[in-house]
Structures are given as structure tokens and as C-alpha cells.
């Protein structure tokens, strides 16, 4: 009696094929037909299969449909582009190499600067103003020197600047200001002072060249620095000759 009311799942494709070709046992066939009385989907599908002439072609269609359905919901595999990977790898290597070279180069110049730089001492004994040779030392210069001697190089710079605005030909002050700039990490400003000094005449030329070379090294401008150092190294009278030679050796 209970077999009348048994609930079962819809027909599988295999069951459908076996039912249509009469391959099911009596019991299985009864289960299927009892289900067909209840299930509109299976019943209509059986009608569809019964009406069609070729069961095999229908099964091919279903196979195709299933694979289309499965393919339509799967994520497309990422496209493999080997040339992009290789180009990226080469690009990365080049970038890293260049960065490494720049670091090595900069650090080499930095090392040379640190090894050879010694600030020029304050050698003011008297101050001679162009207008009044016997005038006392100006207040701004005095303040600048006070800071400079106290190794407060950063604080000395504005006073050097003020003083040089009033007395732009004070070459010793320019040299000290350039040194203060180098010691404060202002190599570009030091370069400007030293070029200014170079233009103004022969005084301090030996030191100007040397500190200018160091200012270039501090900025990583090795070619310019080397050029000046070679000139100093080739000048027997230069007090910086040996240092220049050693610096050149280190830069090789």
C-alpha cells in the first residue's frame, strides 16, 4: 500500500534512457511510472523523448548543454603572457641594478667626502674694511665667527649672509660661509659661494678648488669633482695635492 505514496527524486538521465528502452525491472518501472503520475517535469520530458526519433542525438545535445553550462559559470583562466612576465622581470632587474649603481656611486662619493673634508679654521686676525681699513670687526661677521668657532655652523649662515651683503669682497668670509654650508649639508649653496670666490681672484685659490671638489662630491657630481681633483693633484705646489691624489684613488 505504501508503495502508492512513495516519494522519489526525478528521473536521472540514465533512468530515463533505461525506461524508454524497457531495460528497467518491473519494480523500477513501477517506481518510475508512479513518479510520472505526480511529476509534471518528468512526465513531459518522457513525452518529449518518446516523440523524438533519435535518442542518441538528444543525449549529445544534453552533453553539449551541460558542458556549456559548466563553462559559462567558471572563471576564465588567466591568460598566460610569458613575454609580459619576462619583460617585467628584465625591467625589475634593470631598475634594481640602476638603483644599486646609484646607491653605490653616491655612497662612494659620500665616503670620499667624509674621509677628506676638514673645515677650514677661522683665520681672522684683523678685519680690513675697504672703506675704513682700521674699522672694528662688523657685528654680523663677529656673530657669524662666534657661531662658526662654536661649531654652530647652521646658525652662522644668516650672519655670514648679512655680512657679505654689506661686504661682498670679504673673501675669507666667503670661504668660511662655504665651509659652514658644507657642514650644514647645503652643498649647493657652498658651491655657489666657492664659484663666487673663484671668480674674485687668486686669493684662497688652492682652498677654493679643494672645497669646490668636496662640494661636488657631496652632491654626487663625481665627474666634476674628479676634474678639479686631477688639477690639484697635478699641481706640485698645492697644499692639497696629496689629499687630492688619495681622493682620486678612492674614487676609482
Amino acid at each position, binding site marked *: *500500500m*505504501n*508503495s*502508492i*505514496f512513495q516519494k522519489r527524486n*526525478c*528521473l*536521472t*538521465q540514465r533512468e*530515463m534512457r533505461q525506461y524508454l528502452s524497457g531495460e528497467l525491472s*518491473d*519494480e523500477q*518501472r*513501477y517506481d518510475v*511510472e*508512479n513518479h*510520472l*503520475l*505526480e*511529476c*509534471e*517535469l*518528468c*512526465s*513531459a*520530458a*518522457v*513525452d*518529449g*523523448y518518446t*516523440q*523524438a526519433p533519435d535518442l542518441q*542525438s*538528444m*543525449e549529445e*545535445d*544534453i552533453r*553539449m*548543454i*551541460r558542458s*556549456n*553550462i*559548466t563553462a*559559462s*559559470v*567558471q572563471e576564465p583562466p588567466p591568460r598566460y603572457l610569458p613575454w609580459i612576465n619576462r619583460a617585467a622581470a628584465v625591467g625589475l632587474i634593470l631598475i634594481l641594478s640602476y638603483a644599486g649603481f646609484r646607491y653605490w656611486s653616491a655612497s662612494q662619493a659620500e665616503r670620499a667626502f667624509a674621509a677628506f673634508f676638514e673645515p677650514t679654521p677661522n683665520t681672522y686676525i684683523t678685519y680690513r674694511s675697504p672703506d675704513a681699513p682700521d674699522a672694528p670687526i662688523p657685528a654680523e661677521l663677529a656673530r657669524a665667527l662666534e657661531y662658526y668657532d662654536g661649531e654652530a655652523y647652521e646658525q652662522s649662515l644668516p650672519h655670514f649672509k648679512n655680512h657679505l651683503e654689506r661686504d661682498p669682497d670679504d673673501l675669507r668670509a666667503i670661504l668660511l660661509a662655504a665651509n659652514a654650508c658644507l657642514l650644514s649639508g647645503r652643498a649647493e649653496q657652498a658651491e655657489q659661494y666657492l664659484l663666487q670666490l673663484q671668480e674674485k681672484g687668486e686669493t684662497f685659490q688652492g682652498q677654493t678648488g679643494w672645497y669646490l671638489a668636496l662640494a661636488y662630491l657631496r652632491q654626487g657630481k663625481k665627474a666634476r669633482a674628479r676634474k678639479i681633483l686631477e688639477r690639484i693633484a697635478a699641481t706640485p705646489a698645492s697644499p692639497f695635492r696629496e689629499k687630492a691624489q688619495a681622493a682620486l684613488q678612492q674614487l676609482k
Partner: protein
Amino acid sequence: MKRFLRLSTRKKSWEQASDEELLQAYRQTGNQELAAELFNRYAHLVYGLCRKHLKNREDCRDAVMAVFEKTLTQARITEIHHFNKWLYSTTKNHCISNLRDDQRNSRQQEEWEVLEKSEPRIMENEGFLRLYHKGTNESDTSRILQEALAELDEGQRTCVRLFFFEKKSYKDIAGVTGYSVNQVKSYLQNGKRRLGVLLGKKLPEGQ
């Protein structure tokens, strides 16, 4: 929860999951592979249903894919309780719509409408279910069933007896009675439904 998590990630678990579990997991995760797994269980039936009405193989293939697309969108936003029933009505409506759109198939459409009117709808048999689920006494059940059977039409009673009690196939019943297979199916569907109604009345509500 663990079951749900397994479902949303592991393909092997999907094969063992029920329709309801797959529907719920798809509604919550939106993973279309779950919907595909579910739909593929019925793809051959949907195709058979399409084939019944559309005839042309290509139209059938397109229709099945269209129904799958509907499944993807509808199953995400609505709660489907009986997936096979939902598939039947969705596919049938799609086929009707296809036939209506295709002017060349106007004759086929008429055939379809005639068929729709002549085919009795299969309904859930509440009387049977009550009889089955309430654990009614065996001898009472047998008596009530015999009484209900006696109230069926001749054709229905004959077919119901041959099918449910003698376990004969549609074809065999057709051979014995001289009815066509379609007539046998119709007698069985109507007889089973009517039997259910009669049993529903004869069985006490509380049982």
C-alpha cells in the same frame, strides 16, 4: 554552518547536497557553479520538456540555456521551494513565449494550446499524503481505500487497480484494456487525484 561552508567551497560536497541546500547556498553566496550543479541535475528533463513542444533541436538547446539564465537570476532573489516544479513552469512558459514570438510556428502554438486544455494538471494528492503520513491502521486503510476505489469511474478504477495493485506498466494496461497509453496515463492521473480527494474526506482530520 559547517555544511554550508563546505558547500560554498568544495565541489565534491555539491554532488551530495540536496536541491534545497544548493539553492540556499547559491542565494547566499552567489556562486554560479552551485546553480550550475543544481540545474545540470535536471538539464535532461528540461531538454525533454522543450523537445516536446519546440521540436527543433537548436531551439531546444537555446531554450535550455535561456531557462538556465533565468535560474541564475531568479534563484538568487527568490526562494524556490520545489525546484522541479519551478523548472517545469518556467520552461513551459518559456516555450509558450517562444512559440508566440515565432509567427512561423503559429500552427504549433494552436496544437500546444489544445494540448494544454486537454491535459489534466497533476496535483499533490493530499488524501494520499495524509493516509501515508498519519500511520492509519492497516485494515482501516484497506477498507477505506476499497470504498474510495468503488466510487471511481470504471476506466479510472480499472487502470488504478492494474497499476497500483498489479504493478502493470502503462503499456500493459493499454494492452489489457484496449485504451491508448495516453488514455491510461490520463485515467491514472485523474483516478489518483480523485482517490486522494475521496480518501481525504473519508479519513478523520485528526488522523
